[in-house]
């Protein structure tokens, strides 16, 4: 009896084993086929793309540039467009395509003009004349000019005539006070590029929506732009200090979970009962 049972068991085992093998092999074969198909398709795709790339390369470069421009046709803020034009003009030796990369996204600058105490300048300067000397004695005497190692004075960036409501570029162009970065960018063009691209300066508001970045003058005083050393916020308490404080106090026992409080009360109750 036992022998026959063993035999039947062996047969069933063999059948099961074979079945398993079959299943595994089927699965494997399907997998292999699928992979092969994928490879084929990807190869075809790469071939396609390679050929198309070649064709595109064969075409005239101008067309490509036009295409890129069409793709990146974003409505730029007037200030931003101006900057791009300026930078283009400045970097004449660079090719067009490299300058294209400068544009990442249009931005907005929080208006600054309205915050100025003395703006619009022409309110006072309609009558008052500009002082010819370099020392300020009657008005604005609190201004300290420490910019460019004494190479500049007021009329480097401000107009002497009737255009006082605007800033003055080195080419005597008018620059709006809300676009003052154009003025700074005349010398600090590398910084300006960083600022435009987000590697310098500060973005405010949202990381995902409209890009709002602060103007240079929000952080740097244009008349004395270097940032002065200052005392930092309080020093964190060191572990040793905390230990010193705690060593004189009795150990605080405040429990974590509300339920544990309950267990504590129960323990106390039992303790009291026991002492009775």
């Amino acid at each position, binding site marked *: 009896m036992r022998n026959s049972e063993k035999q039947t068991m062996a047969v069933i085992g063999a059948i099961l084993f074979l079945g398993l093998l079959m299943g595994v092999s089927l699965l494997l074969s399907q997998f292999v086929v699928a992979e092969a198909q994928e490879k084929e398709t990807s190869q075809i795709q790469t071939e396609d793309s390679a050929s198309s790339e070649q064709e595109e390369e064969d075409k005239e470069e101008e067309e490509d540039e036009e295409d890129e421009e069409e793709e990146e046709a974003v409505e730029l803020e007037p200030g931003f467009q101006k900057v791009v034009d300026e930078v283009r003009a400045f970097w004449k030796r660079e090719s067009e395509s490299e300058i294209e990369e400068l544009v990442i996204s249009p931005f907005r600058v929080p208006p600054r003009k309205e915050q100025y105490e003395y703006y619009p300048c022409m309110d006072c300067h309609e009558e008052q004349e500009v002082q010819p000397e370099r020392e300020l004695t009657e008005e604005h005497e609190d201004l300290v000019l420490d910019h460019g190692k004494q190479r500049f004075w007021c009329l480097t960036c401000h107009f002497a005539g009737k255009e006082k409501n605007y800033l003055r570029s080195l080419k005597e162009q008018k620059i709006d006070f809300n676009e003052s970065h154009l003025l700074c960018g005349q010398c600090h063009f590398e910084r300006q590029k960083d600022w435009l691209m987000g590697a*310098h300066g500060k973005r405010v*508001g949202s990381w995902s929506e409209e890009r709002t970045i602060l103007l240079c003058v929000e952080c740097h005083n244009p008349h004395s732009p270097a*940032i002065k050393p200052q005392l930092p916020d309080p020093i964190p308490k060191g572990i040793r200090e905390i230990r010193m404080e705690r060593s004189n106090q009795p150990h605080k026992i405040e429990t974590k979970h509300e339920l544990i409080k309950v267990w504590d009360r129960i323990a106390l109750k039992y303790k009291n009962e026991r002492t009775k």
Partner: protein
Amino acid sequence: MTDKKAAPISRRNFFKKAGTAGAAIASGTTALAVASDVLEGEAYSDALKEYFQKHYRDMSKDEVKAALARIERKAKRKHGVDITVENTAPYAREDTVFGYALNISKCKGYRKCVYACVEENNLSRDPEIHYIRVLEMEKGSMDLEKSNHYFGEDPVPKAGKFYLPVQCQHCEDPPCVKACPTQATWSEPDGIVVIDYNWCIGCHYCVIACPYWARHFNWEEPVIPKEEINTETHYLGNRPRERGVMEKCTFCIQRTRKGKMPACLEACPTGARVFGNLLDPKSEIRYILENKTVFRLKEELNTEPKFWYYTD
């Protein structure tokens, strides 16, 4: 069968077993009875439900909703403040992965970020917990062991020093997550490493695993002045914590998942901090990664931090 001897049930053993079982049952029932006396009504049921709360990722929508309401009620009882706890869903992995970049040539060590973070994230004021450590380093050296964490008696920046703020680096391959025995910490689809404070048992394995000293433990019940509690909170972020749980920087999950900037970035007076979406090719952080000299802390450990330091 005969060789196996049945243990004779002695009278003494029987009474021992029966006695302990009875005592357990009795103590249990009395415990519940006493408990219901101490914590009445809602507080009692809340405490019980919190005790048996599931892991955050295992809870159904209704269960999460109930848990959020429980936390709000508890904050009201404990701190006397009406807070809102949310569980803003993560961005999809395909769209958004958060990254951070910090310009160490701009950081001057003013520590504004440290205290902005304390206020935003309801960190304990006593004992102090700071998610951000600003290290004063010798110029030309990256020896973290010789850095000074406790600078600040003189005005900063000092000559010959640079400042290196260190916080949670939100690694792609986080060693803290690997170390956690209860899976109370994990990496969200948008790349933020979070903790379920209810599931943390406070075993400190993650502290030991983290090479950036980014995890902080509540050794005592956190003390926050009532009027300084930030009432806009997130379940995985800045909701009030308890004694005995781990906590860490979450890139201000309660803010960034709504499109806002992290608090440390908003507070930075030098504009050294840049936050953004690593998958957006037009984002500022991508420009920095592609065009600036960047490095990551302890890169050789292959933790793949999503926190870069760069220089001008």
